[in-house]
């Protein structure tokens, strides 16, 4: 131990940047652990001393809350957990629909803004600049109260073809039910979709091999319509159409889409589409003009230039900022609480007010938003890595 060789190596350990780094990292980590440990134990202790129960047991209790807009069956005697699930699904529903619509609108207006036609590009500029510069909450309230106040009461509903109705309580549309053939009908649609995809893959492979083309899209759609139709005819046409009719208070029958959902969905889609339009424009402008000229000189028509040359290259620039827009839209959907759409935040808030379990419910809400955002971002990263430039 006392040999100079050993003391030299001890000094070496003390001055070794790697080991020293490790030492401080360990201390930092321990302190962090202690930090969270003390926060949690403190909170638990204090809640107990104030007689506030802690735990997730309240999730099993009956909620008692009615919810009008729901995607799964739910009654007031169902548990708080199910109420939160109803809210979660409502959030996902409006977020997914909003993302789809915002992307389509954003693409259209982004391309429009680049148009050489000055009227078209002016329209797009006004659309983008107005919508992205007004706070979203204001837009939601404007759509909700602005649109709501102008629509007539139920008894004077605006009618379209006598089967679609719009009034202050929402838009009523007829519904079709298939009675006994419901399950086979849905299965046939799924089967048709699978056939469509398979047909497309097969035709592409064949084209690569032999150069022969096959009208896969046309035949695919024929199957998508034909197969379910065949099922319905075979089961004796059990189709029933329910058309909305005026009841005592509102329209009965059919399906009514609530104005809360419409206002939230439209506001989220339109607001986000303005940002997406700018992202799209940036992406397209990042593709050098030489690409277009090269494509032109090859004699490719305009739409093929856009679809095959410009957009695939632009997507590489567009995808990362687009991901943040999708995440924003999902998180912004929590503004639903202002207009009475029962989303995740609103349903958890309702449970909070009755049970008073604030910490647990906020934790649940945060976890779900985080989870959904992480999943979105994972999917977009995967898509991004798929389309990114393959370097050889």
């Amino acid at each position, binding site marked *: 131990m006392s040999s100079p060789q050993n003391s030299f190596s001890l000094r070496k350990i003390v001055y070794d940047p790697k080991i020293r780094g490790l030492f401080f990292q360990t201390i930092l980590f321990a302190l962090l652990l202690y930090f969270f440990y003390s926060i949690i134990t403190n909170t638990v202790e204090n*809640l107990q001393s104030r007689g506030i129960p802690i735990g997730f047991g309240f999730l099993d209790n009956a909620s008692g809350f009615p919810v009008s807009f729901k995607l799964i069956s739910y009654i007031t005697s169902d548990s708080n957990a199910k109420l939160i699930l109803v809210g979660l699904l409502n959030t996902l529903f409006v977020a997914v629909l909003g993302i789809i619509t915002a992307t389509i609108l954003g693409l259209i207006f982004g391309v429009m803004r680049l148009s050489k036609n000055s009227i078209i590009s002016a329209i797009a500029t006004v659309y983008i600049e107005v919508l992205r510069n007004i706070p979203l909450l204001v837009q939601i309230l404007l759509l909700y109260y602005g649109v709501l106040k102008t629509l007539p009461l139920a008894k004077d509903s605006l009618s379209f073809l006598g089967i679609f109705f719009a009034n202050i309580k929402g838009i009523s549309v007829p519904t079709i039910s298939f009675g006994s053939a419901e399950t086979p009908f849905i299965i046939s649609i799924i089967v048709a979709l699978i056939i469509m995809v398979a047909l497309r893959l097969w035709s592409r492979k064949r084209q690569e091999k032999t150069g022969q083309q096959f009208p896969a899209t046309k035949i695919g759609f024929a199957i998508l319509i034909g197969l379910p139709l065949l099922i319905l005819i075979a089961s004796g046409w059990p189709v029933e159409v329910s058309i909305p009719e005026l009841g005592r208070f509102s329209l009965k029958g059919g399906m009514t889409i609530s104005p809360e959902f419409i206002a939230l969905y439209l506001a989220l889609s339109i607001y986000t589409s303005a940002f997406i339009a700018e992202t799209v424009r940036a992406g397209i402008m990042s593709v050098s003009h030489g690409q277009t000229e090269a494509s032109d000189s090859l004699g490719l028509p305009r739409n093929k230039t856009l679809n095959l040359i410009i957009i695939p290259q632009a997507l590489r620039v567009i995808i990362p900022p687009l991901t943040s827009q999708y995440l924003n839209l999902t998180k912004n959907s929590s503004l639903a609480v202002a207009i009475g759409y029962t989303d995740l935040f609103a349903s958890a808030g309702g449970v909070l007010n009755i049970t008073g379990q604030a910490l647990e419910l906020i934790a649940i809400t945060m976890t779900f938003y985080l989870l959904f955002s992480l999943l979105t971002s994972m999917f977009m990263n995967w898509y991004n890595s798929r389309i990114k430039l393959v370097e050889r």
Partner: protein
Amino acid sequence: MNKLMTTAIAGVAFGLTAFTANAATLDDVKAKGFVQCGISQGLPGFSNPDSDGNWVGLDVDVCRAVAAAIFGDSEAVKYTPLSSKERFTALQSGEVDVLSRNTTWTMTRDANLGLNFAGVNYYDGQGFMVRKSLGVASTLELSGAAVCTQTGTTTELNIADYFLENGMEYEVVAFEKAAEVVAAYDAGRCDVYSTDASGLYANRLRLTNPDEHMVLPEIISKEPLGPVVRQGDDQWFNIVRWSLNAMINAEEMGITSANIDSKMGGKNPGVQRFLGETGTFGEMIGVPSDWAVNIVKQVGNYGESFDKHVGPDTPLAIARGVNALWSKGGILYAAPIR
């Protein structure tokens, strides 16, 4: 790294000091010199800003009574307007000292939230308001109607129970703030507006044409509204409870803000105790002996407060009904000061 360490240490220190005990609310209140009172974001008659921007109402008067009892100054109150969703958390976390915000006393809230109800300052019940043009005479005719209400309230739960019990269909549209509920009902989004009957009368004033609307006769629930305090501080609980009791007892003994001076030095032993001339009642709850005198002088007795804010001569025009004294056919009853 150094910066990170400092942050971590500061964080740990914060974690240790946060959530200190809050046993002696009275000491805290005395130290800061005012009562922090949680009220509604605006409910005419109960807690609503007047034309000068001062909060007034039946619920506000409870806060003022507490301040009068402690400081001899009913103006020593600061108000925190709270939504129905925020109110309990604000009280639990110590943001407010007392919550006097048309809050229904229920078993869950009393037993499960770490809170205590100090009494009842208004006996309410849930009612329904509709447009007269609908021609509805009873709540039982409301099957299929859309109901506007405030989210996360007992109102919402009562509607669910009532419609289920009577086998009626309904669509509920629930908003976070009372003002939004009223706006949506006014626009015609809903056929029915439901909340505590007092709230119906109060909010009817906000509608475009108040005369086109009527409150249906049925009352479907018991809604005892009262001030709430944190559990575990019995002294503070007593101060709030007895401030309210003093207002009710004053009405019962016929002591008003106008005649209280003439009652001084009288012979009625009950009044003597009330005025602090005999006994040590103020001392028992930790406030000056003239606590009840200050309450009545500055805030008035319960009847005065009721008449001033919600009574027949106000725009709300609510009759005393069950909120009359027990001796006058109501159920308002306060334990005696003795």
